[in-house]
């Protein structure tokens, strides 16, 4: 997906860019509103992550301009302010959602997905391997023409594997991605979800292999 991050704090921006690119997204970064306005004219973004306090103005001004120009690009506001403050009111100005800094990337992903799903998204993002078709937006998995319901963690696990087929993911890494850091989860917990997912995709010609001592990978049979 293609993101535009509008954030003036360079180190935070760098960290976020790093992380989003790590997940395979294309991300542009604007340090202020004027640069951001240039970006939105030249490129088409799936989603904009917008900071509120910016050097050349208030993020809400940008948000309002966007909505006044009938831009449909979903916007998630990243705010460092107290959530209590009525000053934010960003949802009223047309933001799709907001997150308070600092945030968990899992939550950011979840919110992005929720926003895109709500907006209807674009069908081109469907992934296909063997007889398995997966729409990450709607979270719908189709195995051999049959819809298979997925729970959230199964869905996210599938996404991780689909993003990099044949790549081996260690249990620890998968725990990092699936569970929040405040939970004390043993690595074995991941086996439960892998087992569930295997069951759901069986018959699709795609399998999740256990690579002993290293972790798991997804590959076509």
């Amino acid at each position: 997906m293609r993101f535009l991050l509008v954030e003036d704090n360079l180190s935070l921006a760098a960290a976020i860019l790093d992380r989003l690119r790590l997940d395979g997204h294309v991300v542009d970064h604007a340090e202020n509103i004027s640069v951001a306005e240039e970006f939105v004219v030249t490129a088409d973004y799936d989603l904009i992550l917008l900071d509120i306090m910016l050097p050349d103005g208030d993020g809400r001004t940008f948000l309002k301009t966007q909505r006044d120009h009938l831009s449909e690009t979903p916007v998630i506001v990243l705010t460092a302010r107290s959530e209590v403050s009525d000053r934010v009111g960003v949802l009223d100005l047309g933001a799709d959602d907001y997150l308070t800094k600092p945030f968990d990337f899992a939550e950011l992903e979840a919110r992005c997905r929720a926003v895109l799903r709500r907006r209807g998204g674009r069908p081109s993002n469907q992934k296909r391997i063997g007889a398995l078709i997966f729409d990450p937006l709607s979270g719908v998995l189709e195995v051999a023409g049959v819809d298979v319901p997925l729970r959230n963690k199964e869905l996210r696990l599938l996404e991780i594997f689909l993003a990099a087929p044949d790549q081996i993911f260690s249990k620890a890494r998968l725990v990092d991605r699936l569970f929040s850091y405040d939970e004390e989860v043993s690595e074995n917990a991941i086996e439960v979800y892998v087992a569930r997912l295997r069951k759901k995709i069986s018959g699709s010609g795609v399998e999740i292999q256990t690579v002993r001592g290293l972790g798991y990978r997804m590959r076509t049979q």
Partner: protein
Amino acid sequence: MSDSLRISGSIRRRLTIQLVGSAAVLATLLFLIVQTFTRDLAEETHDRILLASATSIMDAISVRAGDVTVDLPYAALSMLSNVSDDRVFYRVMLGAETLTGYDDLPVPEPGSRETGARFDTLVYKGETVRMATTVRWLSRNGVSTPLIISVAQTRTGQTERLAALTRTALLLGAGFFAVAVLLAVWTAQSSIRPLRQLAGMVSRRGPTDLRPVTRPVPAEMAPLVRSLNSFIDRLGLSLSRSEDFIAEAAHRVRTPLATVRTQAENTLHRIERPENRTALREMIRAIDESSRAAGQLLDHAMVSFRTDSLERKPFDLAELTAELVNRLRPVADLKDIDLELEMTGAHAMAGDPILVQNAVRNLLDNAIKYAPEETRITVSVRGDAAAHTLCIRDAAGGFPEDEMGSLTERFVRGRNAEGTVGSGLGLTIAREVAEAHGGRLEIANTKDGTGACVCLHFPSA
């Protein structure tokens, strides 16, 4: 605050008393003037009639063959009865000889060649009389002799009439005073009306209405209103500084935390050594805890700030809850937690929706945070004519019974929350918001003991 206000007198009372006092002085003056005037007028009228009577007698004097005689005209005495039913005396003297009338009426001795009229007040036959005397000089046998005519009348009628006039003057003064008192009350009332209007206008204002007073006021009140406006201005500035400070503090604390957290998370993805990974995870958890603590502290500051001057406006508790549940659903999904919403319809109440939203969000945050994976959290909104009740039921095992009372104190966290990030302010915030709205927070464990049930009760609008 109002207890410390010391009341010293009342402008209206002082104004009324002063006006009434002036009215009393003026009424007394009016009375005295009218009385003096009428008395003078009555005396003057009386004198004129007495003189007219004496003159008419003088006109009836005739000298026949050297004999002076008088044909007393009927009108001379009857005209006096037009003034009052008073006793009448007269005496006509030629030199020392009484021609006719009352021999013993004391007539003043005329100076030589004195003519014209004179008036005397004297006592005759046991009563005070007013007497007019007129003199004419006749030449008798070559000797100039005064012809003296005196007419006197008692003053009973005049006294009575004066008493009546005094009563009238008294009534006039009293009437003037009564009208003046009414006017004084009205004047006092109307002159403090702008003051009352200003007081009413300011006290009717909402707690956050910090606009200056712009409506026109009398010149005398301008300094007060100017000071008031300047005070409002400073108050507004100070309030917005407080808000700005909280927002700024949040920004300053959270942005670097966000940077550190994101970098830590990124690093975690790149390193493999378990010791390092554990250390990083610890770090992320510490960051989460501190950011959450900071968030709740700031939330709490903002909540305290807003509950101090609670502004009530109507909103729908059901709609607010539904929106919040939808916003938190992605977070719950991460743990495969079912967020179930039970409500029947709109629940109109009056209050600060931002505060209520914050309270409910804190409770829901807690519930999601502490609930195990793949469980269910039920949010219900119910209500009757008296109150709205919002309950959040989870399956997180419930609170330890012995801690129930202290859970809503600041920074107290349940033992069951050990190992989960959180500062423990969430319940406190929820309780304070509920109490600020005249409601309460209720904490209980579900009957089957599998979880907790936290309820917010708000009185209906």
